[in-house]
């Protein structure tokens, strides 16, 4: 009843092709953004900001990245965590060599390093597909992880192999390092996420995105229609790795603030990102956020939320339940709803549109 587009006429092509054609959607997104920018940082506790919001924002960029590759182009990658690591190390090296350049620029630029590595490891995708490609990207993951441990230059010869996040400021306000306020870090992450989402959304709705989807649906047909497979696939790898790289730099510099990155960006994280894509919905922007929220928030809520409302559950049990839920849900969604939570959201919207008179 409230969610109905009656009376909203599209009078030109631009309106017809808009990403949010319905006014309620536009209002909704504006409200969500307003809440995220103006309400969340001042209302939520430090605990929630640090343990749910920051990892959610940092990882959602990587999930969007993998979604571009897997959901829009149909190429499976198990190297996302490795590419995130490249971003983190690139940012670390850049900021040690050029400490005067603002860290935000380096977080963004480190994505390009990751993109270059991603293109290199994406080359096999021209010849191999499906499961075989997954194995090739797995090799990338293992190689990168090996490099993170073995090349001491990457972590400035630190005897513990750690990346340490120095204090960096923006207009005199500390944004990375131990003294940075959580709210500041949150707002910076949020800005990154909004900008990156906006870019990704424009990419997938434009010519490049359509060529990716054509490749995904049938690459021979796409080739016959004049899409260059080489360009399309490598572009997808580059963009996807770019997103992973930025996400990795955000993850270490804005969320963890110091890490043993060789163990942080392990295969486990690659799988979590892939599960987030599958659970959230392949080929959907909003699905990427659903998936990340699920992966990030579920363990924390089960572990700390359940005992708080009186369900006696130990941390160890919660940890096991989370594994079971994520595993079961991944299989369930793969079989029953390959488009994930995003599709459920769409169905719900459709139902709301015709409510209360479904026909």
């Amino acid at each position, binding site marked *: 009843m409230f969610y109905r587009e009656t009376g909203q006429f599209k009078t030109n092509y631009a309106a017809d092709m808009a990403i949010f054609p319905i006014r309620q959607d536009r209002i909704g997104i504006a409200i969500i953004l307003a809440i995220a920018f103006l309400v969340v940082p001042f209302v939520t506790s430090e605990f929630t900001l640090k343990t749910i919001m920051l990892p959610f924002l940092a990882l959602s960029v990587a999930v969007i990245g993998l979604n571009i590759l897997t959901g829009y182009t149909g190429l499976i990658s198990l190297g996302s965590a490795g590419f995130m690591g490249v971003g983190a190390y690139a940012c670390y090296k850049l900021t040690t060599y050029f400490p005067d350049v603002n860290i935000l620029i380096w977080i963004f630029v480190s994505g390009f390093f990751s993109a270059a590595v991603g293109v290199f490891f994406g080359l096999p995708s021209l010849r191999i597909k499906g499961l075989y490609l997954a194995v090739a990207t797995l090799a990338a993951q293992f190689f990168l992880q090996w490099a993170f441990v073995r090349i001491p230059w990457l972590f400035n010869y630190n005897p513990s192999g750690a990346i340490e*996040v120095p204090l960096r400021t923006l207009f005199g306000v500390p944004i990375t390092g*131990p*003294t940075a306020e959580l709210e500041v870090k949150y707002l910076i992450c949020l800005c990154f996420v909004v900008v990156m989402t906006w870019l990704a959304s424009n990419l997938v709705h434009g010519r490049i995105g359509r060529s990716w989807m054509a490749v995904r649906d049938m690459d021979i047909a796409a080739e016959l229609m004049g899409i260059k497979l080489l360009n399309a696939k490598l572009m997808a790898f580059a963009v996807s790795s770019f997103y992973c790289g930025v996400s990795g730099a955000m993850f270490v510099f804005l969320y*963890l603030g110091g890490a043993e990155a060789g163990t942080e960006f392990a295969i486990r994280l690659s799988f979590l990102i892939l599960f987030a894509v599958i659970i959230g919905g392949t080929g959907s922007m909003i699905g990427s956020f659903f998936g990340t929220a699920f992966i990030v*928030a579920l363990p924390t809520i089960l572990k*700390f939320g359940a005992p708080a*409302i009186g369900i006696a559950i130990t941390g160890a049990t919660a940890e096991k339940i989370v594994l079971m839920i994520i595993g079961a849900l991944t299989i369930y969604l793969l079989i029953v709803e390959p488009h994930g939570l995003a599709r459920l959201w769409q169905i719900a919207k459709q139902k709301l549109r015709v409510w209360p008179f479904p026909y």
Partner: protein
Amino acid sequence: MTLKKLAMGAAFAAATLGSGFAAQAQDSIYFMHNTYRTGAFSGSGIPVGDGTRDYFTMLNNRDGGIGGVKINFEECETAYDTRRSVECYEQGKAKGTVLYVPWSTGATLAAIPRAHIDKIPIFSMGYGLSASAVGDVFPWVFNMPITYWDGANAFIQHVAQQEGGFDKLKGKTIGLLHLDAPFGKEPIPILENMAKQHGFNLKLYPVAPAEMQNQSSVWLSIRRDRTDWVYNQGWGAMNPTAVREAARGGFPVNRLVGVWWAGGDDDARPAGDAAKGYRALNWHQTGANFPVIQDIIKHVVDRGQSLAPKEKIGENLYNRGVYQGILIAEAIKNAQAITGKKVINGEDMRRGLEALNMTEAKWAAAGAPNFASPVRVTCSDHNSQSAVYVMEWDGKAWKRQSSDIQPQKDMVRPLLEEGAKAFATSNAGWPARTEACQNNS
């Protein structure tokens, strides 16, 4: 976005409720302890967690806590994952924990920069950042009783003892079997130093984390190189595999010496009789023949409040948990004595830890006579570089093999100071120490 909102709402409710609990319990000392009872490393996480948990439960049951105040002990599950550990840190902070015990190097590194801001001291017992032993740079971090560098040094001393003197080391081949991760590579600089000094050949045998259970090629190279001694800086599933492979390849297991994390009962037991003679470094005794362990059995296990099976009590890693508990309890006592307060906070705890001086008499008073060598923390030395000994597996239990070995402080300390300086420079804005020095009485 409904799911996200729901998630945020629920977590918010959890956080607010959580802080409510902390406000209620003002007459107790809240201490949150990280454990990993799940995940790939739970084999070592469970016994350590049980030891500390049982020790504090025993103190509450037997003495009503410490200094008349109950210890509100709570575990936080990390699954040995840094993100989970960060959650635990935040939870501990919100509930007002007096001490953070990370139990993983990644978690330690993520917490160190925050310690002086949140006023929560960190205790990483024999792991973490070695350089944090320098108290002048890291007033809030403690890593007693020994660093990996001291461990490697003690191992070479042990080899020299067995071979009949440092001059006999010349021309010998000594190998480092290590996990190919920062933790595993940590002894390398010390071993290289000592190889130069004493003229032995150092060979490195890295084991990739994915290959922990498949070491046959590594052990082939060890046989090919005719390595005389092997030091095992291993972790988790890597240790039992190393022992088994050594035995299979005909390498004398009594020349394979593990670091203290490679000395679990379950590291040696799976190899059966072949493991007889396997050695490991240790800094405390094993077995249940200590009054403190007997008290735990009486006040905790027999009341059914322990999570540990009775036959595991007194095993090496369980005792390590107890050891950690004794040090922490002693620091709490110190803090109470220094401040005159009963309920202490993180700042008081830091002073208590800095005043820690576990003499032999104090070990005995804690119900653990001759349980471990003395530990003395000072303002600038947050490690104490205590003595270790070598123990040997007899097929059923660990037996003491050597006398105490004191690490050569003059060799290790400069490296520690160098590392601390490097940390302070690479963390631009690292504050100079302002915390007053606690006199060690």
